């Protein structure tokens, strides 16, 4: 719709857009028949790494299109993901995503198919990513390591930027509460055989305080910029060459108030994150074979500098990560009913940080991998996909990740999908090399598994170790965390434009890496290191309903039921080995499984309801309701798990609304109000500052 209003020849426009998708992603054998050109939104690439009609994919996948993005008034990736069924945004080291109950470190975030790096504590901060130049977002749930390797355990979120090559430009400006200003300019042009797309985005905010009488704000003033350029050149009818360039800078003006044993210590400084990537490719597209050679170089440089007020003390934290990859993917359309995709690649990764030892020491890992996938339409009603990937790692054990999926479509209305896949997450550099001692809080230390033994020996020589625990003997090279994920889904199309879909999921995660105490220091401090110890499970049901009420009204509703558990805790409870302390009497009792609320930060229930009104003249209005049930935060009764009623944050309801119109052919104006009910939870929802209004204007030419 965003574009449709401006272009008379909608069909040719869509055909054009789609063909450009094909060119960028894909399988030469898919003909641009009427089935495919219906709508761009119906084609997904992330689930199989080849473009497929959404209804033909046997894996749970959903798409957020540009229109929804615009009408929801979303600026950053976390804004729009928070509005999706089954996705929670958790505010911890930035805004991380939670998919199928798995936390941010287990979800892979791609931009145009390439992985984003630069995680803090495992969390990839989604607010780094602007959604102002995005054509669509594809969300694949369940493990997809068979195609993407590490991190694709809970799901894969692929942000597809607008590289359409149409001769157009748009300029957008937005102003909102907390002095939030967002400006964006997108440009695309076809010059002979070269498509040029460029976009810039600038976003700033004065931040806000939820706690009065504190010098440190809840969200500090920041600015962020995104610059992106993509060049695609058609060398000949079959050959194509191009590259993307992207740079993302975040600057936060930090004032940090730390209470050191009761005394407020004020520090001032900044945090700066600089991420860049280059994505060159060369592609050949024959009649049956399409092959692409892709390079990917990305760097993430983070610096945090704080000066303690009234003292010469400074805190400087630097973290430089470099990731480069070369990969070939070949898609071979063997027959009309069968397609084969295979590929191989090599990754070189390095990190240097003063959190580990010094900036001068680079910690490295390299990974070689290959993958293959076969898709076969067995009968008219039954399609099967099988695939695997093998990752041979230098710094840790190698992994096989298979995946199988079946789709059964008895008729036009119903489709039933079942898929099973294995996912994995490689041990990250922090878990391998961290060397951290906190002198303020209990003098505890955390050492990565690769450096723990040497550090313990060093401290032991200094007579600082009191006792080494039993787990120290188990210190070994870390293995990747692995999961098995099963998804069983059905989609039913009813008359009068109604669609219902349901998906049952279960993920079993083993070899989870957790910290455990390896030794006690003589000063009472504890020394932690990382071990493959825990197993967990997440399971649940996701329900979605989509209904066109009238020509102008559409309704969408979603619900997720989620059950999570640490399996070892569950086993211990069953054996009667875990106790809880009653809130009123203070006495200990043995716990029952029903008292156990599973992993922290998970809501058992979450739901949404979205109502949109839209006329053919370009006026729209939306009202979106989001409910998130209570979730566990901190243990309060000494058993280390979530069980008692005072260990939860309260459930809440958010209501967002927006409305907009098009005028004078080139202009679009919208205004919105997020969190109409002004809900706040100072302690548990620092990212929810209460009611936020904004106004947004766009000029297209």
């Amino acid at each position, binding site marked *: 719709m965003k574009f449709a209003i401006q272009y008379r020849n909608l069909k040719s426009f869509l055909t054009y857009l789609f063909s450009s998708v094909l060119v960028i992603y894909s399988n030469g054998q898919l003909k641009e028949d009427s089935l495919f050109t219906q709508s761009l939104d119906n084609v997904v690439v992330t689930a199989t790494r080849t473009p497929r009609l959404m209804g033909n994919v046997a894996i749970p996948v959903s798409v957020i299109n540009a229109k929804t993005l615009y009408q929801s008034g979303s600026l950053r990736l976390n804004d729009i993901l928070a509005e999706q069924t089954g996705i929670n945004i958790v505010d911890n080291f930035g805004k991380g995503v939670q998919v199928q109950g798995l936390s941010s470190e287990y979800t892979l975030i791609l931009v145009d198919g390439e992985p984003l790096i630069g995680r803090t504590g495992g969390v990839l901060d989604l607010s780094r990513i602007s959604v102002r130049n995005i054509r669509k977002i594809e969300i694949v749930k369940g493990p997809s390591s068979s195609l993407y390797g590490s991190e694709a355990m809970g799901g894969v979120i692929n942000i597809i930027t607008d590289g359409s090559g149409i001769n157009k430009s748009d300029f957008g400006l937005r102003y909102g509460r907390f002095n939030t200003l967002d400006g964006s300019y997108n440009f695309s042009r076809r010059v002979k055989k070269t498509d040029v797309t460029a976009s810039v985005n600038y976003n700033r905010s004065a931040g806000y305080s939820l706690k009065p009488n504190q010098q440190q704000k809840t969200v500090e003033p920041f600015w962020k910029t995104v610059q992106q350029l993509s060049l695609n050149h058609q060398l000949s009818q079959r050959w194509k060459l191009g590259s993307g360039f992207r740079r993302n800078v975040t600057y936060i003006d930090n004032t940090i108030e730390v209470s050191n044993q009761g*005394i407020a210590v004020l520090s001032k400084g900044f945090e700066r994150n600089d991420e860049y990537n280059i994505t060159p490719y060369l592609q050949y597209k024959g009649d049956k074979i399409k092959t692409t050679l892709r390079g990917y170089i990305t760097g993430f440089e983070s610096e945090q500098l704080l000066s303690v007020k009234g003292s010469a003390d400074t805190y400087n934290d630097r973290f430089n990560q470099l990731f480069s990859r070369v990969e070939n993917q070949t898609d071979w359309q063997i027959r009309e009913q069968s397609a084969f995709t295979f590929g191989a690649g090599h990754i070189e990764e390095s990190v240097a940080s003063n959190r580990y030892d010094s900036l001068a020491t680079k910690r490295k890992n390299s990974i070689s991998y290959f993958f293959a996938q076969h898709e076969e339409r067995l009968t008219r009603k039954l399609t099967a996909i099988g695939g695997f990937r093998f990752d041979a790692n230098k710094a840790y054990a190698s992994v096989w990740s298979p995946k199988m999926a079946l789709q059964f479509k008895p008729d036009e209305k119903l489709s039933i999908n079942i898929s099973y896949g294995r996912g994995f997450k490689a041990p990250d550099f922090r878990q391998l090399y961290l060397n951290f001692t906190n002198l303020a809080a*209990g003098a*505890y230390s955390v050492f990565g598994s690769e450096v723990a033994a040497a550090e313990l020996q060093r401290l032991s020589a200094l007579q600082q170790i009191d006792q080494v625990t039993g787990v120290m003997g188990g210190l070994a090279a870390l293995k990747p965390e692995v999961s098995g994920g099963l998804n069983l889904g059905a989609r039913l199309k009813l008359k009068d434009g109604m669609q219902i879909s349901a998906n049952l999921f279960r993920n079993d995660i083993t070899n989870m890496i957790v910290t455990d105490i390896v030794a*006690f220091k003589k000063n*009472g401090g*504890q020394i932690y290191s990382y071990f493959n110890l825990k197993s967990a499970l997440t399971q649940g049901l996701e329900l979605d309903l989509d209904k066109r009420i009238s020509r102008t009204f559409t309704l969408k509703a979603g619900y997720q039921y989620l059950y999570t558990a640490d399996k070892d805790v569950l086993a211990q409870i069953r054996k009667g080995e875990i106790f809880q*302390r009653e809130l009123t009497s203070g006495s200990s009792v043995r716990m029952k499984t029903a008292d156990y609320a599973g992993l922290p930060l998970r809501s058992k229930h979450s739901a949404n309801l979205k109502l949109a009104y839209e006329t053919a003249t370009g006026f729209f209005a939306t009202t979106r309701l989001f409910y998130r049930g209570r979730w566990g935060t901190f243990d*309060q*009764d000494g*058993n280390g798990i979530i069980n008692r009623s005072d260990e939860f944050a309260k459930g809440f309801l958010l209501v967002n609304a927006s409305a907009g119109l098009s005028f004078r052919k080139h202009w679009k104006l919208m205004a919105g109000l997020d969190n109409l009910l002004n809900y706040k939870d100072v302690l548990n929802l620092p990212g929810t500052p209460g009611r936020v209004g904004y106004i947004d204007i766009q000029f297209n030419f």
Partner: protein
Amino acid sequence: MKTRSIIGSVLAAVVIFQSCTKEETAVPQVTLIQSIVKDIPADTIVGLSPIGQPVGVGKFTFYSLETNAVIPNTDSNSTKWDIGLRGSTIITNGGTSGPGKGGAFIYVGTFDELTKVPADSTFRVDAAPNYAITASSNRGWYLYTPQTNLVTPLPGRVLVFKTASGKYAKVEILNYYKGGVTPAATAPDNIKIFSQRYFTFKFAYQADGTTNFK
């Protein structure tokens, strides 16, 4: 109304009288003393050290389980007290801590489940700095969580003591904060620091010298 309540009280008096006489004749003297002790300060925070560490005056609070009372600090070198509390450190009247016959061990289970000191129990004796009750997080009676800066008694831990005079007692620490309420994990550090080191505990003391807690 009046007549009814008069009849009621007469009946009640009869019942009480009867039961009293029964107890006096049939049941032996009750030797198990059970009590809940609230808000015993244990070297509470008086200020901050030059480097910002919260500090108390460094003295133990002594408690007699036998008399269910706090014993003055001046009696530290006597057998009047059974346990001493200072911050998260708990001592017994024995070994390097006092002249008594004290000792202790930690039983894993609930207070009510422990009806008798198990026959194979070994009472550890204080040998400073290694106390019978280990004064360290997750190894003794409490859990310290750096993220929340809170001390919580481990649930399902019963401290079994031998008193200064060699009798047996069981103790469950219920809380470590003033008023018997642990501050919320999200409470300010100031509140957490200045309301800590107040013990609320439940105990049972067996005066007859046996290991029974029934």
